[in-house]
């Protein structure tokens, strides 16, 4: 046990596998063709070809036995390709409800990010337009509902397959109390963070390629310090989010969840999975927003045109993050974990939150 920032051999091979698969099967033409729904059944079928949909489940459950540390690598590769498949949602949902048809990917599963409203509706569930099974909170229970997906999404910013779904209509199974869903939400935040890191990384690659090539005033625009300095901020944003997502995965894989993790704001030590997942999600949302914004800007007017790829990433940076809600609310939720309000139980396993601090 010691600090290690390199990928493990397992992570390396998973990264290579998914990156080469997506480079071949998911060039940006595939992303464009999948719009406006934002789902490619062919790509999903291809992923089933190497058992990707069930990889997040233990081998005993018929899955691939991948650790969270492996899944963040997968999610980053998906984000980098802007892959039009709901694998992040499916991986999270499958871990709550390992039914055979979900493990194989014959049925697509997703999660609803917010509890059902009074009429039993889950508003704008990610992948709700294409998922056969939706898992979420209804009242004080976590339920899974099997129902035919609508197959269409309301026209939206990211061309994401989001849709309203019913928590009541369909084949409904109670999976546990509402609290059983906490872990799934933390995993979704963590994996979405990794996907957004992939988006931000793609924005850096695309931006660098463009500024190396585009000439104005007789030289490449990448030689101008104003642009160099704007791009030089990207690595801290991207790497910071990537390491937070990996640290959240490490915490989850090592059982540092809730009271078993540490949240010590006096020493700045945080090893609790849910708090780290929330931090990763927020940092990755910021990284993806800033990197796609600046990269698009350095394209001049061309970045605004649909012909160029940067706009695909710009829209996903916002769409994939804001589906959870206002980031300020997410920060307030995080603040309650780090500095629990008096008498609250909000702090997810706050080992030692603010104490009588030193000066």
């Amino acid at each position, binding site marked *: *046990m010691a600090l290690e920032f390199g990928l493990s051999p397992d992570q390396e091979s998973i990264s290579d596998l998914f990156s080469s698969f997506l480079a071949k099967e998911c060039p940006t033409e595939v992303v464009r063709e999948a719009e406006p729904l934002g789902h490619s059944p062919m790509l999903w079928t291809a992923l089933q070809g190497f058992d990707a949909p069930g990889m997040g489940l233990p081998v005993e459950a018929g899955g691939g036995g991948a650790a969270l540390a492996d899944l963040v690598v997968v999610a980053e590769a998906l984000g980098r390709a802007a892959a039009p498949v709901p694998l992040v949602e499916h991986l999270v949902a499958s871990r709550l409800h390992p039914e055979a048809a979900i493990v194989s990917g014959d049925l697509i599963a997703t999660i609803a990010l917010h509890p059902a409203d009074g009429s039993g509706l889950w508003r704008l569930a990610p992948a709700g337009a294409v998922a056969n099974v939706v898992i979420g909170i209804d009242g004080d229970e976590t339920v899974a509902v099997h129902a035919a997906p609508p197959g269409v999404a309301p026209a939206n910013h990211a061309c994401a397959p989001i849709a309203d779904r019913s928590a009541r209509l369909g084949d409904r199974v109670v999976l546990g109390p509402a609290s059983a869903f906490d872990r799934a939400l933390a995993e979704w935040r963590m994996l979405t963070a990794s996907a957004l890191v992939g988006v931000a990384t793609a924005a850096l690659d695309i931006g660098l390629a463009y500024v190396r090539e585009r000439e104005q005033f007789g030289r490449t625009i990448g030689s101008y310090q104003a642009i160099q300095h704007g791009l030089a901020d990207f690595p801290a944003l991207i790497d910071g989010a990537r390491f937070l997502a990996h640290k959240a995965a490490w915490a989850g894989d090592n059982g540092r969840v809730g009271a078993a993790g540490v949240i010590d*704001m006096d020493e700045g030590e945080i090893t609790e999975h849910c708090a*780290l997942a929330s931090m990763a999600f927020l940092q990755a949302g910021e990284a993806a927003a800033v990197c796609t914004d600046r990269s698009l800007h350095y394209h001049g007017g061309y970045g605004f045109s649909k012909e160029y790829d940067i706009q695909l990433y710009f829209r996903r940076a916002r769409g994939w993050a804001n589906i959870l809600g206002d980031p300020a609310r997410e920060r307030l939720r995080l603040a309650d974990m780090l500095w629990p309000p008096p008498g609250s139980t909000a702090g997810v396993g706050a080992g030692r939150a603010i104490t009588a601090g030193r000066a």
Partner: protein
Amino acid sequence: MDFSLSDEHLELRRQMREIMTATVTAEVIDETHRSGTNHAPGFIEALGDAGILARAMPGPGQDPVDMWLVSSEAEKFGAPFDAGGMATSIAGVLAQLGTDEQRRRITPGLLSGRELVCFGLTEPDGGSDLPRIKTRAVRNETDDGWIINGAKMWTTMGHVADWVFLLARSDASAGRYGGFTTFIIPMSTPGITVDPVWTMGTERSNATFYDDVRVGDECLVGEAHEGWRTMGIMLAFERGLGNTGALTPLLRRFAQWATESGTIDDPLVRDHMAQLAIEAQVAELLTQRTVWTIATGEGPGTEGSVAKVYATEAYQRAARWAQATAGADGLLRFHEAGAAADGWIDYDVRHSTPQTLQGGTSEINRNNIAERQFGLPRMR
């Protein structure tokens, strides 16, 4: 990836905390503010006695995690480690480039915490553009020695240091990076004078002057005229490992004030505090990554620049936000009635200001990232 510390490192952390609790009392901190000398002799000597300065020395064969842990624990605690950082850095340089005689004569004093060293690098006309320095070292053929003339700026600790690590031009005809020589010279050498430079950060720095300072070859660090190589080794030690952990004590002190004042219930404040907690984590992870690249022998590349720019700019933003949020109480200095966080908030705004300048400005570090990480054209 693995984010855990080994038992050995946890033990070092425990030792650090024990020593700081014993030696860095409120009175000791007060004295550093009163005098402007950011040095606590009892603390640094205790680190020396415990063998911790020797462990924190940078260089091949040393554990960079030890080095990071020592400076980051000091920073989190609010213990003044600048003098320790300079001493270990120069001990590291001597370990690589010094002579056996220097390692016998100089290193033990540095690593015991009893002797301090200051840096004579920057000059009035040579800051970010360090090769422009004008301090001259001229070979004196009559006694096989050197005669040094010039002036240095920002010689922090110069008034209490036993040694100065000095960069001088020894052959002006040798091109931009050629003809530099580095020395380690006793501050008591005739011809060296020290004038205080008072800063808005409470801290005293110095201007130092060298008038016909005569030294022998025993003061050379590395080969004559090969000083730029020495600088490369030294600056690589410095960048992005220390001074990236300031957000944690800032946030701790702010949270303490916010709790006492009831401000912590304000959602606007909580929203921002959560953001600062994220930035503190990012700063630490980026720094740990730099440590790891050094440990694996890959680094340091641009990782240190990435960490330094991010962490120091985040610290400045945070301090300025905390001050604005504390309102008028955030303007009050130490020992004033009602001062927010006992005056630390005012202090952090002042103290954070030079962090984006010293050890490589943000602009120089961004150039470094653009040129070395991205391979974009160098345009200066």
